[in-house]
C-alpha cells in the first residue's frame, strides 16, 4: 500500500510540470499584451507600455520567463502578480479558506441530495418515483446556476430575510451558495448513482443474496450500494477538484471571491504569474484528491487491494 502511494506521488511530479508548462504556453498563444491590459483603456502611451513591459519582465524570451518561474516555485516563491504586485501566495491564501469552506459544504449537500435521489430512483426503477426523480435531476443539470442563485437571493434573502445575500463571514452566509452549488452538482451524481445501482442490481450475487432470504435492506446496503460506489467514488473525486477551482459563477453571484474566480480574472488580464501559481495549486489538489480516490477503492473493493 505504501509503495503504491509512493509510486503515485512520484507520478504526480511530471503531471504537475506538464500542466504548468501547457498553461504557460497557452497563455502566451492567446492574443493580448499584459502590459496593455495593466495600463487599461486610458493611460497607455507607447513609451509607458514599453517601460511596463520591461518592469514586468515580459521583454525576455518565453523560455527564460518560464524557467525563472519554475526556479522560484521550487523554492516556494510563486512570485508577485503582474497586475497588482501582491505576492501570489498571499492572493491564494486569502481565497483558500472561503473556497475550501464552500467546496466542503457544497460537497456535503451534493452527496446527500444526489446519492439519496439516485438510490431512491434505482430502487423504484420504472415507477413514477423514478421518472420524477430523474426529471428533477434533468432540471438540475440544465438549470443555469446563475439563475438559481439569483432566485435563491430573491426569495430567501430579500423576501424572507433568512440569510445574507453576500458576506464572507459565518455559517449563515454559507447556506445559500452551498445549497445552490450542491444541488446543481448533485444532479449528475444522482443519475450516476442510479445507473450504477441498476447495473449492480442485475448481478447474480444480488439474486443469490435475495435467494438466501437476506432482508432487502441488507441486500441493498451490503451488496448493491457498496459495489455501486466505485464509479461514484471516481466522480466524487473529480467533483472535489472542480468545486475547488470551478465554482466561479457561484462565487460571482454571492460575492465570495475564491480560487476559481482568481483564475478566470487572471486569465482575462493575462496575469501570468497568478495563473501559474493558481494552476499549480489546482493541479496539486487534483493529484492529491485522485490519490485519495485510488486509495479509497482499496477499501471499497478488496479485489483491488489484492491486485
Amino acid at each position, binding site marked *: 500500500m505504501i509503495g503504491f502511494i509512493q509510486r503515485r506521488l512520484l507520478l504526480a511530479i511530471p503531471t504537475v510540470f506538464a500542466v504548468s508548462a501547457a498553461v504557460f504556453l497557452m497563455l502566451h498563444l492567446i492574443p*493580448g499584451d499584459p502590459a496593455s491590459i495593466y495600463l487599461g483603456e486610458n493611460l497607455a502611451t507607447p513609451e509607458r507600455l514599453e517601460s511596463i513591459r520591461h518592469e514586468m519582465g515580459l521583454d525576455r524570451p518565453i523560455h527564460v520567463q518560464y524557467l525563472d518561474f519554475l526556479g522560484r516555485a521550487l523554492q516556494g516563491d510563486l512570485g508577485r502578480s503582474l497586475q497588482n504586485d501582491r505576492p501570489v501566495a498571499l492572493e491564494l491564501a486569502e481565497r483558500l479558506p472561503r473556497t475550501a469552506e464552500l467546496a466542503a459544504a457544497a460537497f456535503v449537500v451534493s452527496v446527500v441530495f444526489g446519492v439519496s435521489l439516485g438510490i431512491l430512483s434505482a430502487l423504484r426503477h420504472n415507477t413514477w418515483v423514478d421518472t420524477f426523480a430523474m426529471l428533477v435531476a434533468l432540471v438540475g443539470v440544465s438549470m443555469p446556476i446563475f439563475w438559481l442563485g439569483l432566485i435563491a437571493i430573491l426569495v430567501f434573502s430579500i*423576501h424572507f430575510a433568512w440569510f445574507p445575500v453576500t458576506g464572507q463571514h459565518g455559517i449563515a452566509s454559507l447556506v445559500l451558495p452551498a445549497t445552490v452549488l450542491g444541488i446543481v452538482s448533485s444532479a449528475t451524481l444522482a443519475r450516476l448513482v442510479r445507473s450504477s445501482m441498476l447495473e449492480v442490481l442485475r448481478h447474480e450475487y444480488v439474486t443469490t443474496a435475495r435467494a438466501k432470504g437476506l432482508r432487502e435492506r441488507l441486500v441493498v446496503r451490503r451488496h448493491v450500494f457498496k459495489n455501486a460506489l466505485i464509479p461514484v467514488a471516481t466522480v466524487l473525486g473529480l467533483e472535489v477538484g472542480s468545486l475547488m477551482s470551478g465554482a466561479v459563477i457561484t462565487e460571482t453571484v454571492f460575492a465570495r471571491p475564491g480560487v476559481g474566480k482568481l483564475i478566470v480574472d487572471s486569465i*482575462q488580464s493575462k496575469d501570468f504569474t497568478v495563473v501559474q501559481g493558481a494552476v499549480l495549486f489546482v493541479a496539486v489538489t487534483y493529484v492529491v484528491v485522485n490519490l485519495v480516490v485510488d486509495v479509497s477503492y482499496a477499501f471499497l473493493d478488496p479485489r483491488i487491494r489484492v491486485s
Partner: protein
Amino acid sequence: MNRPARSLRLATGLLVVLAIVAAACAPAQPSAPAVQAPTPGGTLIYGLATKFDTLDPSVTTFSVVGKLAYHVFDPLVWQTSAGKFEPGLAESWQIAADAMTYTFKLRKDVKFHDGTPLNAQAVKFTFDRIADPATKSQTAISLLGKYDGTDVVDDSTVRVRFKAPYAPFLDSVSLPYLSPVSPDAVRKAGKDFGSTALVGTGPFKFESYRSDAEVVLVKNDDYKWGPAHLKSRGAPYLDKIVWRIIPESTTRIATAESGELKFVEDVPTQDYQRVKSAGALGILDPLQAGSGHSMMMNVENPPFDDVRVRRALQWAVDKNAMNQTVWNGVFKPSCSAITPNVLGYDAKMCDKYKYDATRAAALLDEAGWRLNAATGVREKGGLPLKLGLYFRSDSDNARNMATFLQGNLKPVGIQLDLQGLARAGYFDAVRAGKHHIQFWWESRGDPDVLRILVHSSNANGGTNRNRYKNAEMDRLIDEAAAQTDVEKRKTLYSQIQNKLLDDAVMVFFADPLSIFAFQKTLRDVTVDWSGNYPFFHAAYLQKE
C-alpha cells in the same frame, strides 16, 4: 414510499410560488425616520462594483481607488465646483503667471496615521515617488503633467516645478491620487504599501484588505483638519467603513434592498426607476463629469478619411432613441466632448448636429456613397460601406451600444460589422488601428481631458484612437493647458469643442449619471461636484 417524492414536488412548487410572490410584492415602505442629532458609532458597509488593483493612490490605474483614498488621505486642495478651490492640507497656494511653478503653504497641525508629521518633505517624497518609473504609477503620473521636481522651501512650504505650463495642476492635486502618503510607511512596507499597509492623513485609517473581497477602514480619532464644505467637524461619526466588492450588479442591489449593505454604487439604469419608485432606498444621481459615452472614428481608415462621411454619422445617430434603448432613458443625450458640469462646457454645441437621417444620406451621396437598392448598403467604386466596430464583448454597455448602432445606421445604408473581442484581443486590435469605430468614456473632471481624446501626442497607439492629428487642435489644447486666466481658458475650450465637432472626429452619445442607492438610516452622505466620489466625512447612521 412516495413521500420523499411528494415533498420534493412540494418543495419545487413552493420555490416557484415564492419566487413569483417575492417578485410581485414590492417591499413594504418604512415611514421616513425623523431627523435626529448625529449619533456617533456604527459600521457602514459600502458595495463596490469593481475590485482594486492596489490601494495605493500614487500607483493605481482604477478610479475606484480614489473613492477609498479620499477617506484615508487628504488632498492638498479641495475642489468644490468646477474650477473653484478651497484649502485642504495646503492652507494657501500661489501659481506663477506662466503656470510653471506652484507654491503650497501646508497646515502645521497634520499628522499621518503612523504619527509622523505632514511636512514639505512628505509632499516632495510623494510627487518624486510618483514620477519615478520604478513606482509604475498610472493615474497619478498622468495627473503630474510635465513634472520637473519639487523644492522644499521650508518645513511647511513646497514649490512644484513643471517643464511646461500646466494650468490643470490645481485640479490634479484636488484629486486623491496626488494626496501625500507617509514616507516612513512607504519605506517600511516597500512593495506591500497599498496591499498590507496604507498610511495617510485622512478621517479613516486602514485596517485590513483581502483582495477581491473587502477593505476595512476604522475612524481616525485625531482627525481635525477636515474640510468645511463636507461639514466635517473633526473625527468622523462612523466607527468603520467596510468596502465590500460585489461585481455582480443584481447581487449588489439585492444587498441594499435586503438591508445588508447601507450604501451601494453603480445602480444599473434598468433598476434605477424601480428602486427610485419603490421609495425604500435613498438615491443619489449626480451627472458624472468628464467626457460622456462616445465613439471614436479612425480617420486614417477609409472612408473616415473623408470628413463628409464622419459628419454624416453625426447626423445619423439618434441619441434620444439610443438613450432610451441602451440606458433606459436615464442618462442625458450629449452635445459636446465634455459634460455640462466641466469648466468651459459650451452649450452652443447642442445646436451643431441633430438627428436627421435625410441630411446624413445627402452627405453620403455627396461623398460618392450611393445606395444599392438590392442590398440596402451604400457603395462606392464597387465597395460596400461596411465599417468595423470594435468593442469589448465582456461589457454589457458596449454590446448594447453596438447593437443599437447597427440597427440605427442600417436605414442610412451603413453596414456595421460588429467585432466583440475579449479585453486582451480588443486592446491589441484598437491600438494597432484596425477599427473604424470604437467606444470611449472618461470621468476626469478637468477640461484637459480633451488632450486624451484628440491631441496628436496620444494618436499613435495611445488613447487618441481617432488617430486624428491636427496642428491647430494641438496648439489650442496646449495653450488652454497653459492658461491660468479662467475666462480665457473657457474661451479656448469652447474653440476646441467647436473644432472637434466641425472636424467630426467623434460622435458623443450620452452623459452618464453616477447612481448610488442607500438605506435611509444613513444620513449626510455627499457626492463631489464631479459626481465621482461619495464622501462619508460627516455621515452617520440614525438609530433604527
